[in-house]
C-alpha cells in the first residue's frame, strides 16, 4: 500500500505551520508618520522578499522533520522572523520622515504563538535537546538588535533613565505586596480552615477583590495622609504593641471584640510594614526617624503606601483560598495518626498538616504572584510609579508603542514569575507526596 504523504504529520506542528503561513499574509509592520498617527500596514513579502521567502521555505519544510531537526528548523525560522522585522523596519524608515515610527502588527505578533507551537512539537519529540535553539535564536536577535528600530524600542530610548527606575519600582511594589500577602494570607487561611465559624474570612478577602482600585485609592488617600501627619514611628509601634496586647486580653470576651481591635490595628500594621518593605526593596531611599511624622518613613496618602496596601488586599484571596483548600484536603486518617503519636495541635499543624498542604499553598501564592505582577500597573494611578506609568502615559497620549513599552515587560515578568514559582513549588513538595 502506498504511503499517504500526510499520514505521519504531527498535529501540533501542522497547526504551527498553518499559523506561520497565515502570518505571511497579514500586516507585519505599521508605518506611521508620527507616533500618534494612524499607520499603513505592510505584509511580509512587501517588506523584504528575501527574508520572507526564507521564512516561507522554513515553514514549508517544518512538517517533514522530527525532534532535534524540527527544533533546528524552528530556530532558523525565529532568526528569519527577526531578520524580516529588522530589514523591514530599515526599509520603511529609510524613506520616511524624522519622526516616523514603525510599530509591530498582527503578523509579527502571531509569529510568536506559531513558533511556540513549533517548539512545543519538537519538545514532545526530542525533549530539551530539541529546543535549545529557541533561547539561542532569541538571544542572537536581541544581541544584533533586530528590534531596535521598532516603536517600543524608540520609546525606550526616550524614557531610558525612567525605565530602569520604574521597573525597579514595579518589582519592589510587587515584592512588598506579595511578601506581606503571604505573611497575612497563610495564617488567615489556617484560620479559615478551622471549621464553619471562620468561613467569613474567605468571604471578606473575596469582597476586598471586588473593590475597584481607583475607588480604593480615593478612599485611602485622606486617612493615610492624616495618619502620616499625626503619628510618629514610635507612636505607631506603640499602638501596634498595645493593640496586640489588647486583642489577646479580649479573646475571653469573644471573636468580635478581638476583631474590633485587631482590624484597625492590623491595617495600621499593614500600612507600616508595606511602606518599610517598599523602602527596603525600592529605589527611593528609606529614612527612619523615631519621632518624625510617619510621612518620613514612606507612609503617605499618595505613593507606595496606598499602592502596596491595595495590592496586598487584592493578593489575599488566592493565598487564603489555597491555604484553606490545602489544609482541608489533608485526610483525617493522617491527622489521627499524628494525634496517636502524641503530637500537640501545634506540632500537628507544623509537622503534618502544613507540609502536606504546601503544594496547594504554593499554588495559591503562584496565582497571587502572577495576578499581582499584572495589577501592579494600577500603582501608577496613585503616584507610586511602576511599569503602569508607561501604560497610562501611552493610553493618555494615544501612543500604542509607549503602552507596549509598559505592557510587554509586565507579560514577560508574569511568565517568568510563574515559571520560577512552579519550580519552587516542586522543590517544596515533600518527597512522599510527589
Amino acid at each position, binding site marked *: 500500500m502506498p504511503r499517504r504523504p500526510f499520514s505521519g504529520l504531527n498535529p501540533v506542528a501542522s497547526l504551527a505551520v498553518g499559523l506561520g503561513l497565515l502570518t505571511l499574509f497579514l500586516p507585519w509592520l505599521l508605518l506611521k508618520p508620527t507616533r*500618534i*498617527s494612524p499607520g499603513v500596514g505592510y505584509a511580509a513579502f512587501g517588506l523584504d522578499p528575501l527574508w520572507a521567502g526564507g521564512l516561507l521555505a522554513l515553514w514549508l519544510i517544518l512538517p517533514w522533520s522530527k525532534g532535534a531537526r524540527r527544533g533546528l528548523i524552528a530556530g532558523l525560522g525565529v532568526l528569519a522572523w527577526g531578520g524580516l522585522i529588522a530589514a523591514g523596519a530599515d526599509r520603511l524608515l529609510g524613506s520616511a520622515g524624522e*519622526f516616523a*515610527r514603525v510599530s509591530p502588527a498582527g503578523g509579527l505578533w502571531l509569529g510568536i504563538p506559531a513558533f511556540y507551537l513549533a517548539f512545543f512539537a519538537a519538545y514532545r519529540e526530542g525533549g530539551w535537546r530539541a529546543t535549545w535553539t529557541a533561547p539561542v535564536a532569541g538571544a542572537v536577535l536581541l544581541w544584533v538588535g533586530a528590534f531596535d528600530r521598532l516603536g517600543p524600542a524608540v520609546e525606550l530610548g526616550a524614557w531610558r533613565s525612567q525605565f530602569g527606575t520604574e521597573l525597579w519600582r514595579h518589582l519592589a511594589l510587587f515584592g512588598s505586596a506579595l511578601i506581606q500577602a503571604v505573611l497575612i494570607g497563610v495564617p488567615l487561611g489556617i484560620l479559615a480552615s478551622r471549621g464553619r465559624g471562620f468561613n467569613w474570612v474567605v468571604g471578606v478577602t473575596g469582597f476586598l477583590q471586588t473593590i475597584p482600585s481607583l475607588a480604593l485609592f480615593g478612599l485611602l488617600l485622606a486617612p493615610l495622609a492624616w495618619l502620616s501627619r499625626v503619628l510618629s514611628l514610635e507612636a505607631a509601634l506603640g499602638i501596634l504593641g498595645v493593640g496586640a496586647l489588647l486583642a489577646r486580653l479580649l479573646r475571653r470576651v469573644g471573636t468580635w471584640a478581638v476583631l474590633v481591635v485587631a482590624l484597625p490595628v492590623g491595617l495600621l500594621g499593614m500600612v507600616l510594614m508595606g511602606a518599610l518593605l517598599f523602602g527596603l526593596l525600592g529605589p527611593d531611599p528609606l529614612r527612619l526617624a523615631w519621632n518624625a511624622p510617619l510621612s518620613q518613613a514612606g507612609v503617605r496618602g499618595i505613593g507606595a503606601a496606598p499602592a502596596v496596601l491595595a495590592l496586598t488586599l487584592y493578593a489575599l484571596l488566592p493565598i487564603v483560598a489555597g491555604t484553606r483548600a490545602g489544609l482541608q484536603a489533608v485526610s483525617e486518617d493522617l491527622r489521627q495518626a499524628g494525634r496517636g503519636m502524641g503530637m500537640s495541635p501545634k506540632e500537628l499543624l507544623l509537622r503534618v498538616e502544613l507540609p502536606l498542604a504546601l503544594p496547594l499553598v504554593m499554588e495559591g501564592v503562584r496565582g497571587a504572584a502572577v495576578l499581582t505582577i499584572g495589577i501592579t500597573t494600577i500603582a501608577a494611578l*496613585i503616584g507610586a510609579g511602576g511599569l503602569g506609568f508607561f501604560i497610562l*502615559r501611552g493610553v*493618555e497620549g*494615544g501612543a500604542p508603542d509607549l503602552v507596549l513599552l509598559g505592557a510587554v515587560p509586565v507579560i514577560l515578568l508574569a511568565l517568568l514569575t510563574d515559571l520560577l514559582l512552579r519550580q519552587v513549588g516542586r522543590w517544596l513538595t515533600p518527597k512522599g507526596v510527589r
Partner: protein
Amino acid sequence: MNQVFAFLVALGMGLALAQKGPITIGSKIDTEGAVLCQMTRLVLEANGFRVNDRCSFGPTAVVRKALTSGEIDLYPEYTGTAITQFFPGQKIDAAVSRNAAQAYAKVKELDLKNGIVWLAAAPANNTWAIAVPKALADKEGLKTMADFAKYVNAGKPVKLAASQEFVDRDDALKAFEKVYGFKLKPEQLLILPGGNTTQTEQAAAQGTSGVNAAMAYGTDGGIAALGLVALTDPKGAVAVYQPALTVRKAVADKYPEIARLMNPVFAGLGEATLSKLNAQVAVNGKNPADVARDYLKSKGLLKP
C-alpha cells in the same frame, strides 16, 4: 590642616544653607502637566531647592486632593477646571468664567480660603475646542465655530467624536450650540467614554465610523500633526482654561521666591509655545524633562 577644616565647615554650611525645601511637586497624567511640572522642577533645582519629583501621578481628583491634604506642595492647574469643579457651593457667573482676567481673579480669591495660592497664569487658553480635518476645513471654508454652525445647519455630513463629559457639561458642547445656534443630533455624535482628546483627534484623522470632527484642547500638540485644524471661538462661548501653579499657602509663605522664580517662566508660555512644546512630547515622543530643559535654556531661564 586648619584651613582645610575651615573650608570644609564653610562648604558644609554653604550647602546646608543653599538646600531649601524639600518641595514636593506633582502634576496630572497629561502631556502639558508633565512639561509644566518638569519646568518647575528644573527651575527650582537650579535655584537651590531640593525637589521631590512626583510629576504625572494621577487624575485631577487625586492630584487636587493630594495638594489640599498636604501630600504635595504644588502642581499646575487650570482656572477653568477650578471654577467648574473645586467650588461646588459657589454660584459663579458664566460671564466670569469666560473672561480670562476675571476668572483668574475669582479662582485666586476663592481658593485662598482653601489654603491654596495661585501663582501667575500663563497667557494661554487650553480650553475646549472642535477640530476638523484640514481637507474638510479648506473645502468648506471652516475657520470659526460660526462657520461650523453654518455647515451643520446646511445639513451637510458631520460626526463629532467627544467624551461623555464634553457632551453633558453646560460649558462645553452645549455652550457652543447655544452661542452659535446649531444642534447636533445624537446620531451625529460618537461618544468615547472617558475619551481624551488624542483619541478623539485620532478618530477624526482616521475617519473612524465617519467621524469628521473632534473634541480638542486649545494647546493640544497633536492637532497639526494629525492633519487637523482647531476652529476658533470668536464669541467666547466656553470657559477659559489658563494654566497656573497652585501652591499650598504654607509653602508659598515660607518660600516667596517660588513665585518670583516661576512667574516669569509662566509669563512666556503662550498658546503657540505651549502647543509646540506639547507636540514635541506627544507627537515626536521626546521626554518631557528634555523638552522642558531645552526650552528653558533657549529662553535663558536656565543656565546652559
